[in-house]
């Protein structure tokens, strides 16, 4: 991992689009850590109720006090094809993002080194502080599974949660990567080693006095393990993954960290995938070579872009990317957000 990749460990919340909840099933970690046995994942089984799925604006997860009717069940059939539905929902939210959110606060999902086109104002300093966000952007959902889960008080409870004890529905669907719990102190976020993408030029980081020194230290076992679990429970899977990877770098046999890492990777992979609309989407570059240069890409994104030929699918690209699937998907999701690439079906 190159040093120039930055990764905000403190992602803005609720910015990215809600994936359709029908995709929840696919969002389940495919290889959940063990002891998952007792969990009931059948909440959405056989719930194939039909009906309209209104697109509801939600103000915040905590305000989700909705009367669910039958039509709100998770596997209800949308009236339009799933891809289209997702694409529309995303386009809507994307549009909102562009209006409402400072472009600098690139979704945490994205490879953080890929920030918005330089033509947009760069508000890096805003990225790290929750206060700086102002009102939460509106995000949308179609219908929500067991929304009561979202009302669970985040930090205290979740810290005891095992990933296995997590119902997928409480993972943040609307954010590709994470959603921040308002109760989480910003310092905490910087207190673990950033293995994914160390930041070095972020003004916000520099103000976090201890951040830089801690980055080079081995993860603090005492605090990082619970933080990892917290983050996982909060749906901050890349945050949890960073810690898990940090733990693994000092002790590769750490089973707990292995489970969390695997699970996080799975969920993240699925999330990016559902944002991109599936493995069989064909990717093409929409920006001219000259315009591409104006994007702030890193060399890995540059490499992926160079593989895009307008006929290969995401799957084919992943095969030849030489990166982990997760990394490649993350970069692609960001490129899509930056409107550098276009996805279409064959």
């Amino acid at each position, binding site marked *: 991992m190159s*040093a120039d990749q930055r990764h905000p460990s403190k992602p803005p919340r609720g910015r990215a689009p809600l994936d359709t909840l029908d995709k929840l099933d696919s969002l389940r970690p495919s290889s959940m850590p063990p002891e998952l046995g007792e969990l009931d994942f059948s909440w959405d089984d056989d719930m194939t109720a039909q009906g309209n799925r209104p697109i509801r604006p939600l103000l915040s997860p905590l305000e989700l006090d909705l009367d669910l009717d039958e039509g709100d069940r998770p596997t209800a*059939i949308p009236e339009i*094809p799933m891809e289209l539905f997702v694409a529309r929902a995303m386009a809507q939210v994307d549009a909102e993002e562009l209006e409402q959110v400072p472009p600098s606060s690139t979704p945490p999902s994205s490879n953080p080194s890929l920030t918005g086109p330089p033509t947009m104002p760069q508000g890096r300093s805003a990225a790290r502080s929750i206060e700086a966000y102002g009102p939460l952007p509106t995000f949308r959902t179609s219908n929500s599974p067991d929304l009561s889960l979202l009302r669970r008080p985040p930090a205290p409870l979740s810290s005891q949660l095992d990933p296995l004890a997590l119902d997928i529905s409480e993972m943040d669907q609307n954010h590709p990567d994470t959603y921040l719990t308002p109760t989480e102190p910003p310092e905490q976020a910087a207190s673990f080693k950033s293995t994914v993408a160390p930041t070095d030029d972020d003004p916000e980081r520099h103000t976090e006095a201890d951040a830089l020194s801690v980055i080079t230290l081995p993860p603090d076992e005492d605090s990082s393990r619970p933080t990892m679990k917290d983050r996982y429970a909060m749906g901050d899977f890349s945050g949890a993954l960073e810690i898990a990877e940090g733990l693994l770098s000092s002790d590769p046999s750490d089973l707990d960290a292995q489970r969390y890492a695997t699970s996080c990777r799975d969920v993240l992979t699925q999330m990016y995938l559902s944002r991109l609309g599936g493995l069989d989407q064909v990717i093409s570059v929409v920006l001219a*070579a000259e315009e591409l*240069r104006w994007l*702030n890409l890193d060399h890995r994104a*540059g490499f992926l872009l160079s593989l895009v030929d307008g006929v290969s699918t995401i799957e*084919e690209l992943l095969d*030849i990317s*030489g990166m982990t699937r997760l990394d490649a998907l993350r970069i692609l999701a960001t490129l899509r957000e930056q409107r550098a690439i276009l996805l279409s079906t064959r």
Partner: protein
Amino acid sequence: MERVIGIDLGTTNSCVAVMEGDAPVVVPNRGGYKTTPSIVAVTEAGKRLVGHIAKRQAITNAENTVYAAKRLIGRKWSSPQVKNTLLASAFTIIEGPHGDVRIKLREKTFSVPEISSMVLQEMKVIAEDYLGGPVSKAVVTVPAYFNDNQRQATKDAGQIAGLDVIRIINEPTAASLAYGFGKGFDRTIVVYDLGGGTFDVSVLEIGSHGVFKVIATTGDTFLGGEDFDGRVIDWLVKGFHEEHGIDLRQDRMALQRLRDAAEKAKCELSSVVETEINLPFIISTGRNEALHLQRTLTRQVLEELTADLVARTIQITQQALQEAKLQIDEIDETILVGGMTRMPAVQRSVGKLFGKDPGKGVHPDEVVALGAAIQGAALVEERHEMVLLDVTPHDLGIMTVGSHFEELIPQNTTVPTSRAKIFTTSRDNQTAVKILVMQGESQKADENELLGEFVLTGLKPAPKGQVEIEVTFAINTDGIVSVSAKDMETGKAQSIQVTATSGLTTDEIKSMMQNAQEYMVERRTDEAFETERQRAESLMSEVESMFPIVERVVGASDFGRDALAKARSVVERARQAVQRKDTGAVREQVDMLERTIRMFRGVVSRGT
């Protein structure tokens, strides 16, 4: 009649052709390319990649990408060629159970014919897709210098791929066939073949009756288009280093892009005089920014960068003429083969050497496959005027007393052929003789290649020189040699077929065939599912797009509600079948979806 395909199994690229009526045509692959890289890779997920897709990740996944397997095929682990390839390859090459060569890809070990079979299988699929039916017979080309082991290993590769290789022919011979030689005139021609990884030059004597004699063949198995690309890469890397102080070779992704861009630029410069190489975000500075590479390369600079490479091919060509004991003016034609001969500097240099323009008009990277297709058709149609006679590439003989090599069949004998010679015992009361079958041009046996050996026992004890033994060499049309020795007095005989030296046993080949078949079934199943899935999905969205109209028209009636509910459940079932990857179920739902659409259309047309 069953069609025979012609396959040019190249070091860097392969090409497949078939006869369409009287003319051979090259079959493009799915990407529309007429040649397919002879590259096989296995991804991290265990997926097999063959062709262009494998090439595009060849550097970033170098350890698991087999490139130029042809340099290894049919060779012994101990051969110098294998040692050289070992040094030049990033993938793992290990010794096989029979002193042969094996390649490790991720967790699995493959024989070289197995790797080549994956390329052949790909070519077979390309042809089958084009012809719309199964193909089982092929003519495959090999370099003129390939020995029996290499030819046999190539046949084995075909067999593993499910192809009956009805004939192996020499590449320069195939190229000459495609140029229409062998009809009417006696000619002496030079075939200059500069491909992606190897350079071969052959001098051929072509008789008017289809006899193709390879009088001389030389070359360099490590000289080709890749070296030209390498020069461009060097130039780019050096320039970038001068400008930014960063070595692009350190980064595999950068190197992969450089390689692709260098080859692209090189090819473009065969038709234009200047091209731009543009690689944005090529490398990270380590300071949170990525640098761009942008340079203009002119044909003139490219020619300067590669002048010595071209000069070397000319030198080797002169050497071939010397070996053939021919003067330049005794050469009637020169033909250019291999993608690299599209480079104007190459054409100029060859033209200059021979004092006349080389033959053009056939695409140099397709001509070998075209010739193979012509030969394939000739073989099954038994058009006699087309029968091609190949010749033995080396002297064949046995070792006699004093480590002397006694030739039985001289080089350039047209095959099939057979020759016999009488030998005698060299010791008194000798009861057994050992026959060492060899090929090569040296008088000294140990300088030639040992093809096989066997022992004839039970000779009657007698003074030396009294027992007469007849040794017979026979070569069939595939160039496979069989040797027998017979005690003239007792009639007792012993023989071997010099074939089993491809490095694989029959059982191994069988099990590899099985694997290849299974792979193919899996792949076809995936493709079948994909087709159904696409159909199902487009129908699903059509049904879904009709919902609002149908709802408006009949949504209020019981019938309407019922129909809509049914339609929704059809869509849902189709979706589930797709999710389960159940091809059969998807197919069923496709039917249902089609019916639903018809029903909806009826409803809408009546309602409006």
